[in-house]
């Protein structure tokens, strides 16, 4: 099978740069202590004050390092395994690779836009761009006409769509629930910590929630795009939900809980996402002459 040749050098580069960024985030240290400052909106925030993430808040650093850990122990190994499978012609591998690239795209889009500027800025931007192009190449390599026939009739489309709707619905509710009350009560300043704007909310509301809901609808309608987008969304969710859980747990460990109201639904969604990801992978049949190496 002819597979996109640019992926051959894009993916190793993504892997190496991401490994570097993650190790720096976790292990690069400088002396210093967290200290409080007042943001220009008059909000009191704790600045981390040491390490690579010097100018981020203690709470953001807990999230970014949770992220770094999941990228290191799940994201990067998954990138290697799925690339190996994909280049050996496995459809499962190609779907998994597309989902994993979507995860890297999300992480490094948010790292470039949300991390307080640090020396790794260009590395984050490079990872963002390369994951974007690798993702586009990977997702456009599928033969849409042929794709639905590779899924078994027993694929639990309803359950998969339910999880996708739950993810889309939860993200919309959680983030609209944060923004709209502030619009209604302009006297309380927006809780933005020390950041310019709400990057995560913008990304989730414009990219992730619409993708999840659209994928669910198209899958229920048995559209070929539905099979592709749902697989990508669920397999991306696999890493993403683990990363979000790690962020939440890390925040709780560092004593900066974002409230169990956000953490518990994320953990529940993580569990559901894991289950349907396994069901999805099990129901891709391999009879079309596609050798999946054992």
């Amino acid at each position, binding site marked *: 099978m002819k597979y996109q040749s640019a992926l051959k050098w894009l993916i190793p580069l993504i892997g190496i740069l991401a490994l570097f960024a993650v190790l720096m985030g976790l292990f690069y240290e400088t002396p210093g202590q967290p200290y409080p*400052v007042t943001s*220009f*909106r008059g909000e009191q925030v704790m*600045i981390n004050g040491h390490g690579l993430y010097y*100018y981020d808040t203690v709470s953001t650093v807990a999230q970014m390092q949770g992220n770094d850990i999941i990228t290191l122990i799940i994201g990067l190994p998954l990138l290697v395994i799925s690339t190996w499978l994909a280049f050996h012609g496995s459809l499962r591998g190609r779907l998994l690779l597309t989902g994993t690239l979507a995860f890297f795209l999300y992480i490094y889009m948010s790292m*470039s*836009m*949300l*991390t*307080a*500027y640090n*020396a790794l*800025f*260009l590395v984050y*931007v*490079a990872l*963002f*761009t390369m994951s*974007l*192009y690798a993702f586009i190449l990977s997702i456009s390599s599928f033969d849409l006409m042929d794709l639905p026939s590779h899924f078994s009739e027993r694929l639990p489309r309803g359950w998969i769509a339910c999880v996708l709707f739950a993810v889309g619905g939860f993200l919309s509710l959680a983030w609209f629930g944060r*923004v709209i009350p502030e*619009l209604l009560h*302009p006297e309380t300043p*927006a809780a*933005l910590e*020390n*950041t*310019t*704007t*709400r*990057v995560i*909310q*913008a990304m989730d*509301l*414009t*990219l992730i929630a*619409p993708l999840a809901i659209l994928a669910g609808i198209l899958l229920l309608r048995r559209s070929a*795009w539905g099979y592709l987008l749902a697989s990508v969304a669920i397999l991306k969710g696999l890493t993403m939900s683990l990363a979000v859980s790690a962020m939440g747990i890390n925040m709780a460990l560092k004593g900066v809980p974002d409230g169990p109201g956000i953490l518990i639904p994320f953990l529940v969604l993580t569990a559901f996402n894991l289950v349907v990801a396994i069901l999805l992978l099990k129901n891709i049949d391999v009879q079309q002459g596609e050798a999946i190496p054992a």
Partner: protein
Amino acid sequence: MKNQSALNWLVPLIALLALFASSIGLLYPNNGNSFSFTTIRGETVQIWGQGWYSYDTPIGALGFKAGDLVTLFLAIPILVISFVLYRHGSLRGGLLLIGVLAYFLYNYSSLGFGAAYNNLFLVYILIFSGSLLRLILALTSIDLQALSTHSTEKLPRRGIGIFLVISGIILSLIWLVLSIIPALLQSKAPPEAYYYTTFMTGILDIGLVAPALIMAGVLILRRASLGYLLASTMLVFTAILGPNLAVGGILQVLAKVITLGQAMTFTVPFVILALIAIWFTIRLFHDFSNAAPNTLTMKYKKEKLNERYSVN
């Protein structure tokens, strides 16, 4: 291919929301004064303190205002006209629509991800999301094969390709050489990130626009069919972004936020690039108009027929 026309309502919605957001950005009363603020990095910066973009820096606020002016008086009219032409099956209308949607995507990523959070946040990200989705659908609605075969020998293909590649390189180098590399050598943040979380324009220009320019240039030089579509998109995009940067530069000089010298260094190169882009856009569109029966019409009519007689 029904879904391409299914989301057509997104275009009028984008136009209305952008009309709303840009009018507020321009017309909101200019009460208040700029003030100094010491950032966590220990740098003293000015905050604009007036009008809609009061939590932005003077350069940022005036840049966003320039964006609003261009959106209101140039981009929205082009969006509406090209959409009407596209609905009538015009290829040039479709290509113009794609280019102007790329501009909306850029302008509203700047506002949604880069402007200091304000009450129009949800509107900005809605326009961003709508333009992205509509752009993807419009891009996939163009028949690539037909597009490349319809370009004639008179098309300055090499000129366009080289121009796009050089623009991409200049765009990256401007920010790298003037801002990011000096900051790295001094182990500090570039001035653009003294106050903002990070250097958003740098991300958008180095991460998204420059690679797209270079790729479009390389692909059209290689006569790849996708190259014609991407080249047209990036030319229209640059032609609309140029006035945006020019107006921004003028507003910033008039408000004495930057010196005339700085404007000459930063703004003039972009304006020259934009003027060349406008010239090439005219040549390209002229060439497509001479080309035989048009590419979009056939596909569009087929879609309409399918829609009408579809059993579902």
